[in-house]
C-alpha cells in the first residue's frame, strides 16, 4: 500500500516549496436533469504555506464547490489540483484518502459532528479513520492526548464527555475545528465556519482560527462576508465560477 508522504520537508523544491495547494484551470459542471449547470469555469488558485486565503463570493458563485475540489471530495471535469506539486489525479485512491485524512482538515458551516459520539470521540474519530485497528491501538494514547490538548486550547476541557446536542453552536464549531486539526493538516478548508453563529460567537471562532494561523497553519476559508474576508492574508473574489478579483490584505 502506497502512502502519501506527509512530511512537508519532503515537498518538491523550487517554487512549490511555499505552494501547498495549487488549482489550475478547474472546470466543474453539474447536471440537473437535462440542464447542465457550469459551476466552476476555469479557476486558478494557489495557496501558500502559512497563508490565510479567503474565497469571497455570493451564493452560487462556486466557492463551496471549489473547496470540495481542493479537499478531494469532488473531482474536476477539467483542470487539476496539485498538493505540494503532486497532482491529485495522479494519486491512487488510497493515497487520496490519506491526503484527505492528514493533509486536509475540513470545517463545515453546520459543524457536522456525529450525534452519537461525545466531544472527545468526535475529535478522535479523525485519527481513527486514518489507522487500522492494530495501528490505532498503539497510537490511541497519543491521539487522545492531542485531541484533549486541542479541546483544552479551545476552552472545552470540561466538555469531553458531552454530546454535541449538549453544546452551544460556538462550542460545536470549536469541536469541529479541533477535529480538523487533530491530524496536524497542511491546510484547513473552512466553509462558512461562522455562518450559523451570531457575530460575537463567530468572532470568537475566527480568533481561534487566526491564532492557529499565527502558529503557521494554512487556511482556505470560504465566506460571503467581506468583514470576515478582511481578516485574511489574501482574498479572491469569485463570480459565476471564475476568480474575478484578487486582493492582498494590508
Amino acid at each position, binding site marked *: 500500500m502506497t502512502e502519501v508522504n506527509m512530511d512537508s520537508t519532503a515537498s518538491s523544491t523550487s517554487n512549490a516549496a511555499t505552494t501547498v495547494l495549487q488549482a489550475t484551470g478547474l472546470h466543474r459542471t453539474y447536471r440537473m436533469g437535462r440542464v447542465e449547470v457550469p459551476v466552476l469555469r476555469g479557476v486558478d488558485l494557489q495557496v501558500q504555506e502559512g497563508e490565510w486565503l479567503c474565497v469571497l463570493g455570493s451564493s452560487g458563485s462556486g466557492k463551496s464547490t471549489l473547496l470540495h475540489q481542493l479537499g478531494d471530495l469532488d473531482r474536476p471535469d477539467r483542470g487539476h489540483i496539485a498538493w505540494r506539486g503532486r497532482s491529485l489525479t495522479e494519486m491512487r485512491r*488510497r493515497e487520496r*484518502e490519506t491526503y*484527505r485524512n492528514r493533509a486536509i482538515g475540513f470545517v463545515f458551516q453546520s459543524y457536522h459532528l456525529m450525534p452519537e459520539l461525545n466531544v472527545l470521540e468526535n475529535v478522535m*474519530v479523525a485519527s481513527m479513520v486514518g489507522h487500522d485497528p492494530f495501528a490505532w491501538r498503539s497510537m490511541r494514547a497519543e491521539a487522545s492526548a492531542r485531541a484533549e490538548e486541542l479541546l483544552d486550547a479551545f476552552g472545552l476541557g470540561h466538555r469531553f464527555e458531552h454530546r454535541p446536542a449538549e453544546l452551544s453552536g460556538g462550542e460545536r464549531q470549536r469541536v469541529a475545528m479541533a477535529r480538523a486539526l487533530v491530524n496536524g493538516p497542511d491546510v484547513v478548508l473552512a466553509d462558512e465556519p461562522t455562518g450559523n453563529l451570531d457575530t460575537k460567537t463567530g468572532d470568537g471562532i475566527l480568533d481561534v482560527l487566526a491564532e492557529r494561523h499565527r502558529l503557521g497553519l494554512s487556511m482556505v476559508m470560504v465566506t460571503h462576508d467581506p468583514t470576515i474576508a478582511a481578516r485574511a492574508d489574501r482574498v479572491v473574489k469569485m463570480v459565476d465560477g471564475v476568480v474575478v478579483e484578487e486582493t492582498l490584505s494590508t
Partner: protein
Amino acid sequence: MYALLLAFRYLRTRMIPLVAIGAVGLCVALVVVVVGVMSGFLHQMEKAGKSLIGDVVVTNGLRGLPDPEGFIAELKQNESIAAATPLVDTFATIRMPYDEVRGVQVWGIDPDSFDEVTGFAQTLHWTPEGSGTDWSEQDFRRDLSPELLMGLEAEGRALARVEADGTVRPGICLGLEISIGNKRNNEGTYDPINRWFMPIQEPVVLTTIPPETLNTTPEPVSIAFAPVNEFSSGLFMIDKERVFVPLAEARRMTNMTPAEEVDEEGLPTGKVFPARSSKILIRGNGLPEAQVREIVDAAYRRWAEREGYAINPMIFRVQTWRENQASFLQPVENERELMRTLFSLVYLVCAGLVLAIFHAIVTEKTRDIGVLRALGATRPGIAMIFVQYGVVIGILGAILGVLLGWVVVHNIALINQAIGDPPMAAVFVLGAVGLVGLWRFASGFRSGFLAPRVLGTGLMLVGFGLGAAIWYIKANGLSRVIWDPAVYYFAEPPNRMDWWTALTTAIGAVVFSVVGAVFPAARAADVDPVEALRHD
C-alpha cells in the same frame, strides 16, 4: 476502529436496531424451540426404544430361535456382552376381571435377565417411592402402605404370586394404559379410577392360538395369570398394548416348549428339540451398538453351525435397537429435518429485516457518511461500519434467540399448562392492562393526539378481550392443555435443548444478518460525499 465504535454507538442510541435484534432473536428462538421439541420427542422415543429392547436384537421370524439359553450361556463368555435374555413375543386376547376382552402384545420374559438388559424393574409402577416409576406430589400411591407396595414390587420382579397356601401362580405385569383402573391426568401421572386398582386378586386370562405345527391342528391356549403389577415404559403405545408374563407360560402359549422329534408317521425319534424364543435381547458392555451387533452375529453363526441349527438368511436378523425400531423412529427423524429445513426460511426473514432497517439507517446517517469521507474514510471502511453493525445485530439477536429458546424449551410444560389452563390471576393482570389502555385512550381523547388513542384501543382489546375469554373458559370448564398427556406418547412435552441446532441457527442468523447488511453497506460506501454533506 471507528467502524466498530460507530456500529456500537448506533446500536445504543437508536430504537430501530433493538427492533432488529428482537426480530432476529424471535426468528432464532422459533427454530430453536420447534427443532428442540422435535429433537426432544425423538430423543424420548429413542430412549424408550432402547430401554425396551437393549442394544441388539436377534430374531428369526415366527419360528423363533432354538435353544436361546444355550446360545446366551456361550455369548456371555464374551466380555463385550453385559447381559442377554430370551424373549417370546406373541399376540393374545386378554380377559380383564371386569369382563373386558381386548387384544394385547404378550412378551414372555425371564424377569431377572430381562431386567439386566432393559432395566425392567425401573418401569414397575406399584413400588415404594424411589425404586420404580417417578411419583408426583399428589400421587395416589402415597395412600398405600409401604409393605403392600414392597410386596407388589417383589411379585412384579418375579412375575409370580405366592398364595397363602404356598401355591405359586404365574403373574402378569400389565401396561399401565391397559386396565381401566388407571387414567393419566394432566400432570402426566396416573389416578386410580373405577375402583379397580392394585392389589387385584381376580385373575386375568390370556388366550392365544399357537403357530401350526406338523400333524397338529392349532387349538387355542388359555392361561390365567395373577395381575402382580403394572409397568410404565413412558411410551403410550407400548403401555396401552403390552403385557409381561413368565417366559415358560409364553412358551406354552406359542408351542416353543421343548419338543420331541417325530418321524413321517408321527412316531418319536428320540431326539428332543430344545425350547425356543422369538427373540434374544442383548446389552453390550458399553461398546457401540454396531460393534455389539457384529460380535453377536459372528457368535451366533459359529454357535449355530456347531450345534447343527440351520440359519435361514431370509428371516434371520441381528439388528441394533435402532435398526429394529427404524419404522418407528425414522418418520420422526424425517419430520424433524423437514421442520428444520422449513423453519430455516426464517434466515431470509432475518436478512430482509436487517436489509430494510439498514436501508433506513443508511439514509438517516448519510451526512455522517459524508463527514467520514471528508475525514479520509475509505469506501470499504464506510461499508464495514454497516457490516459490523449487521454482525453485532446478528450476534446479539442470536444470543437473545438462543436464550429465549432455552427458556421456552426448559419451561415448556409450564407454558403449556399456563396457555391451556391459565390461572385466574391472568384475568386480573389482563384486566389491569385493559384499564391502562382505557386511561391512555382517555388521555389521548383529552389531548387530541391520535397515537395514545390507538395505543389505548389496542391495550383495551388485548386486556379486556383476552381477559374476558379466559374468564369465560375457566367459568365454563373449557380449559384444555395443548399438550395433553392423556393423549400424547409422553407425559410431558419434550424439553430437550438441541444445542447443535441452536448453534447452527445462531450462526445462520449472524450470516444472514450480514447478508442483509451488505447491500445497504455498499450503498453507504458509494454515497457521494458532497451530496452527503448537503443531506439534511
